């Protein structure tokens, strides 16, 4: 989270609150016009920019300090919950001075009698014929990704002997396919987005068609290069997973790999953002002025809502990349999905919190051992029990196949000491386990403490005679 949130916050700060606003295409989401460059107007915008930049600086420094402080939050679960809430707050708070600036700029524009000329531009030389995407390169990268995925599927199907150790460990959980597919899923998204961006609207920034052609081609090429770079990062991450997994079976290793992957993805994104900003600055300086004035359609300078515009994807006003027209039916659906995913994240946090902080409950009823935790319940008939033993948790090595592995609860299907398909229901903090072998399954259970687990073990021995 730190790898993602801090660079994004710093980037947003520099992108939203530039020192020299005169070189920028927009000021707080409002098109930068020659009318703003007069002495009086310029002095006003200088003060406005200075005030909001100062507020943003304080917010940005505070957010970075809080991010560092969050490293000291105890327990993994609490860290996850706080980081996720912090991510939402962070993105919201850093934009507050920008939203205020946007509202002041719109008022300033209105007070100066500047009204939109409602002109829409198109260049006959750029329309539909300016592209930057190297299709063969993107397709080759995706084919290689598909081959890696195919190898993963074959490995999980037991058709590649080199991966047998993994299959023995995880059973039918398709771990290799799930892991590589997680990385390669981004490829599919980028493949789709790369084509959408390459066929998106061409901007008219000059009366000179050659400048328009060069600008749009360069802009699309920068995004195309970024898409190809991300596809290769995904492929390499998936390939490393495929190679490393049979050698070292470790969840920590996968987490480290995920961290490195995120770091590379962030570096790729930052490089793209810098290239885009430099490109815009270069053309801003060298072109005559054509301004498409659609400021009024940008709610808070960030959300585009224009029922008269038939386009779906629109270049963002702030930051880099593309946004959607909220008035477009598909745009409405995408925003609804965005809102739903935020709600889902909050619900997921509540669920994780309940999982982590609800103690497990093990009891017997009518000669049946019942393991109960929230919605999950395991029932072990005493008549089915073949063998029972207790031991120290440090003596067993459990690898999760499907289920929950939190600090206070481990439940679901695990591979224990090389035996696949074992059912776990224990509190890892207790340090002890009770192994119950039945006719068809092996269970590893515990109570919340070592003493309670020992007491449970003695009780089970007594009822089993």
């Amino acid at each position, binding site marked *: 989270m730190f790898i993602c949130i801090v660079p994004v916050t710093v980037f947003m700060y520099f992108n939203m609150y530039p020192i020299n606003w005169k070189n920028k295409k927009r000021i707080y989401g409002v098109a930068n016009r020659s009318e703003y460059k007069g002495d009086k107007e310029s002095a006003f915008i200088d003060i406005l920019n200075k005030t909001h930049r100062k507020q943003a600086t304080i917010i940005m420094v505070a957010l970075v300090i809080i991010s560092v402080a969050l490293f000291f939050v105890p327990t993994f679960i609490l860290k996850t919950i706080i980081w996720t809430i912090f991510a939402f707050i962070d993105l919201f708070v850093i934009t507050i001075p920008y939203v205020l600036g946007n509202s002041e700029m719109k008022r300033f524009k209105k007070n100066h009698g500047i009204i939109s*000329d*409602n*002109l*829409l*531009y*198109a*260049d*006959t*030389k*750029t*329309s*539909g*014929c300016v592209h930057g995407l190297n299709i063969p390169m993107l397709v080759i990268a995706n084919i290689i990704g598909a081959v890696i995925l195919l190898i993963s599927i074959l490995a999980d199907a037991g058709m590649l002997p080199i991966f047998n150790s993994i299959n023995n460990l995880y059973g039918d959980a398709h771990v290799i396919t799930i892991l590589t597919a997680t990385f390669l899923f981004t490829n599919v998204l980028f493949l789709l987005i790369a084509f959408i961006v390459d*066929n*998106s*609207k*061409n901007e*008219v920034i000059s*009366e000179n*068609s050659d400048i*328009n052609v060069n600008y749009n081609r360069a802009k699309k090429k920068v995004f195309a290069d970024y898409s190809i770079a991300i596809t290769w990062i995904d492929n390499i991450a998936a390939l490393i997973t495929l190679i490393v997994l049979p050698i070292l079976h470790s969840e920590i290793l996968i987490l480290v790999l995920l961290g490195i992957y995120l770091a590379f993805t962030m570096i790729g994104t930052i490089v793209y953002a810098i290239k885009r900003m430099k490109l815009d600055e270069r053309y801003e300086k060298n072109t005559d002025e*054509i301004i498409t004035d659609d400021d009024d359609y940008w709610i808070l300078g960030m959300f585009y809502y*224009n029922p*008269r*515009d*038939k*386009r779906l994807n629109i270049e963002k006003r702030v930051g880099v990349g593309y946004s959607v027209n909220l008035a477009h039916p598909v745009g409405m659906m995408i925003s609804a999905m965005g809102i739903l995913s935020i709600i889902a994240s909050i619900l997921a946090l509540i669920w994780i919190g309940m999982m982590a902080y609800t103690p497990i409950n093990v009891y017997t009823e009518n000669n049946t051992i019942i393991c109960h935790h929230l919605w999950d319940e395991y029932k072990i008939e005493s008549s089915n029990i073949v063998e029972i033993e207790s031991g120290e948790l440090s003596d067993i090595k459990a690898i999760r196949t499907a289920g929950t592995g939190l600090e206070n609860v481990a439940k679901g299907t695990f591979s224990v000491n090389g035996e696949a398909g074992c059912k776990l229901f224990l509190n890892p903090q207790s340090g002890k386990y009770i192994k119950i072998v039945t006719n068809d399954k092996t269970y590893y259970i515990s109570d919340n403490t070592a003493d309670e687990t020992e007491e449970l073990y003695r009780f089970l021995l007594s009822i089993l005679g």
Partner: protein
Amino acid sequence: MVIKINEYSDVPIYMQIRNQIVMGISSGELKPNEQLPTVRALALDIGINTMTVSKSYQILKSEGYILTDRKNGARVRPEIKQSGELSEENKNELKRIISEAKISGIDKTSFKKYIDEYWS
């Protein structure tokens, strides 16, 4: 050539596109045989319905300014038929413009200056 569309103008958008392409051909910004954007691409760039652009192209084709075919799309006609005469519709339009100019107090010499400017 840059096409500028005013979405709040009294002139329908398809006529604005038609007029600007005609002006582009006249000024030489659009050369004979020059490829024009596809209906879909131009509609996407302006942010309007494809039917609107299609209507403009149909008018331009029927007036003999452009050629369209499925394979090559739309292009400026290499040799536009020159009748050497002003159409009745344009004569009426010119009459209206001259009348408005007279009412506005523009004398003939000043009006001719405008003609010279736009003619070149």
